[in-house]
């Protein structure tokens, strides 16, 4: 699958990859993303399940726990590269903002 869409990441995808810098279980991810974003971003459990499946299939994350329900996930090198690419894209957006809108905003 994925997919043309994964050329960029949605906010929920971004934070999922970001929080998997450390190994986490599914429920921990939901809580961790909420904490990381101060409650601004929340991932629904159905969406989280789909993302874990899709990212695992893409090789962006890997499952480390063998037992059902205790499965833990962490980001892979491929996933880290995707995250870094997204970070660069966002930085470019910020730089563009500062160059144009930011300057105009200054007195």
């Amino acid at each position, binding site marked *: 699958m*994925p997919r043309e*869409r994964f050329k960029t990441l949605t906010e929920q995808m971004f934070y999922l990859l970001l929080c998997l810098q450390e190994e986490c279980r*599914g429920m921990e991810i939901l809580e961790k993303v909420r904490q990381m974003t101060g409650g601004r971003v929340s991932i629904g459990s*159905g*969406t989280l399940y789909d*993302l874990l499946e899709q990212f695992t299939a893409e090789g962006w994350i890997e499952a480390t726990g063998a037992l059902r329900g205790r499965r833990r996930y962490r980001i892979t090198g491929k996933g880290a590269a995707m995250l870094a690419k997204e970070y660069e894209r966002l930085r470019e957006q910020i730089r563009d903002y500062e160059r144009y809108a930011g300057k105009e905003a200054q007195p």
Partner: protein
Amino acid sequence: MNRTKRLFVPLSIYDQQAMETLLEKQAAQGWLLSKIGGWFWTFTEIQPQTLQFAVTYFSKATEYDALPTDAQKDKEDLCAGSGWRLAARRHDIQVFYTADADVLPLETDPVVRVASLYRAMVRLTIRPRLFTLVLCLFWLGKYWLDFRHDAIGFLSDSFDILSLPVWFLLLLACLVEPIACLAWHRRAGRAAEEGGLFLSPRIPARVSWILVAVAILLLCLAAFGSPLPPQWYLGWLLICAAAIGGGTWLRKRLREKEYPAGLNQAVTGLMVLAVYTVGIVVLLAVSLGSHLGQPDHVVAGSYEQNGRTYEIYNDPLPLVAEDLTETDARYSRRATAYTSPLLQQSLYEQSPVVPQSAGAPTLRYTIYDTDFAFVQNIVVQQLLDEHQDEVYEDGTVFQDSYSAIDPAPYGAQAAYQLQWSTSGPIPQYLLCWPGRVVELRFAYLIPNEEQLAKAAGILAPTD
């Protein structure tokens, strides 16, 4: 034990919103979904309450998997952890509910939701429909080859003609939903990416069902219009029902016993194939044994020759040798007709009983009746082509062909006589009137102009 009830739910599998609304309404009336069937869903009695439902799609299990699969349990555990309890599951969907009005929705990212639903569509709709589409194309291809091989036989076969639109309708039915799914995926993907919106799919499942219903109706008409009796088709339907019903039963049994999905699929598939094959072989044997579908003839007696018994028929023929010449030979007269809405092909044969009447004038003729000029053109062209340098099995080429003759004496539009390059004209004629073509062959009788004109007068269309 709580009471249960079954409810007919004729909703498209992709109509999430309608399903969720129905479930919320039922919960408010004191019924909670407990089992999802094909058309009927089972509800268990609860205290009437306000519940929120979420229908989600699952594309990693098949109908051959023992449920729940580990992956389904993973998802259910994850959802339970965030306050969503499982109401019921099937291999392709899971339904969750919660009483907490403030709980976070199960699906929060439209981009992921579109991707997840599209995967389910590929699995549940697009692939199966494409498989059926290939089957339809195969049958249409077979019909085309049959037509190319023998257009007259094809056009006068009622079952072929009436069942031809069936495959076109099924072809259309197979295309409607996949096209709607692909179109939705395109629009929904863009809306999710650009606007963060989830567009609900509108898949016209009912259109497909209507097309299939019309196709089945046409198939029934084709069956009743064919030379085979209704009992034959009833037998065939019973075989199909036994194969499909047996397959469904076996699949469920193996699933309950938690056999691997691959093994279940292979065993079930083989069982369906075996039941169908054995059933068809038995049906064909019974049909052949009881002469089902064979034309009815008036039997007037029988005679023996070379140790074999031949029946003597006395079917009514529009033209007999006695109309043209005096003869006291003993004859067998046989008539066979094949009728479709496009073409009626009637074959007539008056042949002497041998050996006592050997050498008596013999008549063989076929009358083709049609209301369609294009069908008549096809018939005439095929008959002309058939006698254009015939190649026999041993490779010998008989340089014969129909040559145009004056149609006026026969009141026809066109007339032809067969010519052999070596021996000249032979007594075989092709006479064409509007709506009727007759191919007339004589043996042991070379008709003169008067006899031929008389034969043509008898065989010409009356109106």
